[in-house]
């Protein structure tokens, strides 16, 4: 706002009986901010309408699409589980991939984070380079990595693990570095003052401080990676997605449903586990009075309850990693031994070229963006009401609150690509299936964000509207929406960002967008084309990220 905060002193105007001051009109004055806001809204609305037209997305098609899905679901019931031992084996494989992928990402992220954090980097140039690597890992979707690695190393779990690992670095190293930048420098100075070496300094003064944040990030990422590892099988990178794709290709809808239910179950279980682990591991109370690290040469904290639990969990994780490596038959040094294969594949992406395919590429890019926009707009139209009803402080009744939360939770458990294969099976290949899948996914993802941020708004204004005789709708429009608007806008943009990212890989299952061309070019060994597609995806993701950062600054 350009009218900055006034000094706290009362102005000298006398609040007496002076005549009402009607020198200015009762219309709000022109404000540049409001103007930009309306232009931005109009632009987004216009683009969304254009996008809907491009992918033939309209209400009739939507209704028909849901009819088709209902028909399909009917054929999927009752669910069947044929060959349970195989499904069980694939499930274990899926879990192990998620774990090993996250561990790999952690191993890469730790040194990278120290290089990328402003307070531990040896040189600003190094910091810059490290941040660049992190951004690149983030901008290339895990499934794109998977497609490439399957090509380089053949079908199996190793490409899947590497794909999860590399893409996760984008998030983990960034959060790790952020945690390092937020440490209290006191203990570090103290250790340095003892004449300790640089490594000692990092290990004994920095590590203890960032540990809780890092552990939180790790648990969070295992959860996310499990959601991806269930679909890696679609591109031949191991796990249960393979069986699901088999069942769908063979039109064995009942067993497909069985597999989907198993997937949802394991994802829900992991979410529970993650919440529980976060609560026990990151509970500051369990560290007692010894919580703040004591600066000085003996910075080792005593064996509190919290530390014991953490040690046990670390041991269990280590054991699980070893068991996974043995079970999957993976040589821990495989990534290094097969380094040349990997480099060769990446080398063949260069120089990127798209000769003769410019038209098709451009159309695919348009389709990718269109899917993201349409899915975000249509999904938000449901996600926002659901989110408001799922906010405890605004929901009109306990029953509605619990129902809305349940819907959001159920939808959230289903990975977008699983939704996409279902929609493709129901309504056929094409962007419509992708847009519907992402739209449904948006209800779960955005709905939760909306509900959580509505629950955080200040309750006073709500009470003031009620005290003035306002009803539920008055409270909603006068106090809830105005307070939550910046968060809602931010979440909406974040959702658009996520949906466009996802829509770059929807093509892998035939649900439209640029991913299809990527799959085709890798399959037909046109690596130079694949190179340009990856470059394009990279730029789309990067541009969307910058754009949403810019817009959310405007809306504050």
């Amino acid at each position, binding site marked *: 706002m350009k*009218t*900055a905060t006034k000094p706290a002193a009362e102005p000298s105007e006398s*609040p007496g009986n002076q005549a009402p001051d009607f020198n200015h009109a*009762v219309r709000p004055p022109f404000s540049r901010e409001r103007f930009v806001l309306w232009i931005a809204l109009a632009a987004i609305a216009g683009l969304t309408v254009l996008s809907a037209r491009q992918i033939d997305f309209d209400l009739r098609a939507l209704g028909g699409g849901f009819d088709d899905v209902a028909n399909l679901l009917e054929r999927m019931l009752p669910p069947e589980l044929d060959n349970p031992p195989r499904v069980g084996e694939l499930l274990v494989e899926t879990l192990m991939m998620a774990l090993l992928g996250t561990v790999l990402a952690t191993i890469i992220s730790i040194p990278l984070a120290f290089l990328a954090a402003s307070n531990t980097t040896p040189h600003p140039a190094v910091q810059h380079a490290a941040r660049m690597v992190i951004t690149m890992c983030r901008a290339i979707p895990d499934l794109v990595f998977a497609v490439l690695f399957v090509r380089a190393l053949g079908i199996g779990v190793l490409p899947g693990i590497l794909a999860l690992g590399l893409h996760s670095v984008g998030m983990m190293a960034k959060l790790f570095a952020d945690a390092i930048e937020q440490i209290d420098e006191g203990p570090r100075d103290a250790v340095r003052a003892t004449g300790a070496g640089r490594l000692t300094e990092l290990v004994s003064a920095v590590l203890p401080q960032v540990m809780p944040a890092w552990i939180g990030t790790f648990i969070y990422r295992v959860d996310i990676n499990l959601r991806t590892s269930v679909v890696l099988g679609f591109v031949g990178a191991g796990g249960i997605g393979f069986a699901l794709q088999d069942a769908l290709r063979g039109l064995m809808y009942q067993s497909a449903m069985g597999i989907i239910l198993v997937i949802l179950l394991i994802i829900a279980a992991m979410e529970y586990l993650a919440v529980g682990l976060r609560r026990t591991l990151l509970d500051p109370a369990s560290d007692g009075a010894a919580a703040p690290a004591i600066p000085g040469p003996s910075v080792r904290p005593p064996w509190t309850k919290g530390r014991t639990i953490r040690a046990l969990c670390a041991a269990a994780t280590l054991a699980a990693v070893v068991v996974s490596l043995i079970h999957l038959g993976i040589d821990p040094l495989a990534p290094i031994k097969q380094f040349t294969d990997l480099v060769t594949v990446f080398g063949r992406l260069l120089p990127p070229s798209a000769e003769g395919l410019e038209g098709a590429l451009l159309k695919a890019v348009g389709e990718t963006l269109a899917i993201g926009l349409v899915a975000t707009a249509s999904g938000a139209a449901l996600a926002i009401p659901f989110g408001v009803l799922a906010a405890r402080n605004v929901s009109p009744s306990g029953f509605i609150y619990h129902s809305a939360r349940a819907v959001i939770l159920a939808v959230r458990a289903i990975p977008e690509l699983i939704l996409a294969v279902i929609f493709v099976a129901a309504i056929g290949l094409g962007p419509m299936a992708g847009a519907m899948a992402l739209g449904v996914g948006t209800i779960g993802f955005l709905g939760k964000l909306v509900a959580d941020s509505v629950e955080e708004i200040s309750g006073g204004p709500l009470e*003031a509207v009620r005290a003035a*005789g306002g009803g539920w709708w008055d409270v909603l*429009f006068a106090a809830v929406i105005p307070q939550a608007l910046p968060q809602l806008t931010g979440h909406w943009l974040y959702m658009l960002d996520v949906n466009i990212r996802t829509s770059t890989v929807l093509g892998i299952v035939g649900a439209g967008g640029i991913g299809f061309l990527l799959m085709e070019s890798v399959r037909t060994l046109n690596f130079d084309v694949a190179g340009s597609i990856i470059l394009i995806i990279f730029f789309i993701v990067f541009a969307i990220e910058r754009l949403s950062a810019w817009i959310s600054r405007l809306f504050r």
Partner: protein
Amino acid sequence: MTQAAATAVPDSQPGPAIRVRELRKDFGPVTALHGIDLEVAPGELTVLLGLSGSGKSTLLRCLNGLNPITAGEATVLGQPVHGMTSREMRKLRSRIGFIFQHFNLVGRLTCLENVLIGASGRISGPRYGILSYSRAQRREALTHLSRVGLGQHAFQRADSLSGGQQQRVAIARALMQKPELILADEPVASLDPENAANVMDLLFQICLEKRITVLCTLHQVDLAMHWAHRIVGLRDGEKVLDSSTATLSREDVLNVYKQLQPEAAPDGTTA
């Protein structure tokens, strides 16, 4: 109990604005109010004093239904507060202005929009944005805002104002309701002494002018003695003072703040 002196009551309409009998309010195992009796005549300006935790806010919130009553009865502006439909409750609330300690403005909205929110109870249909209100309503809101001396801040965000100014916007919001009664819960407790006095003077002046009945909780004994027709004291959910200001001394009032009566102190800890 001292009877309210008839001379102090400016208006002698039939029927009290507030009539509370044996009002009791429990929060689970905690009893916040143990059977309060209170009557406030129309146009009367009553100040409610008492230590924090004595039940002042609870009493005010019972009177406009923000807290449901456990037992006893409360009749406000001729309407029994208990057993109302939510529609009747909203109708009654729209006649009662409520002023909160923390103003409860929507910080991101302009002052004018915040004042317009006061009309929620009497206009049908929710509104969003200044332009969704009629011109007449906007004019009316601006009049109230000018009355509290903030006409020139109409289109400024509410959170850009100082605390005292924000409370004045909240007063304008209450005036927008065209209230017959104003309930104010420690309206100046989060302001510095000078602003507190200014805001209280403004509120009481307007209410006297417009003959609005006021029940206000306050910690400033001097302000209370200066403005109130009547002072009511609460301690631990019971009424311990109810008297016309004219017949009260400062000491009588300060007595309300004595933590415990000497004979009632079981463990001998006195304030």
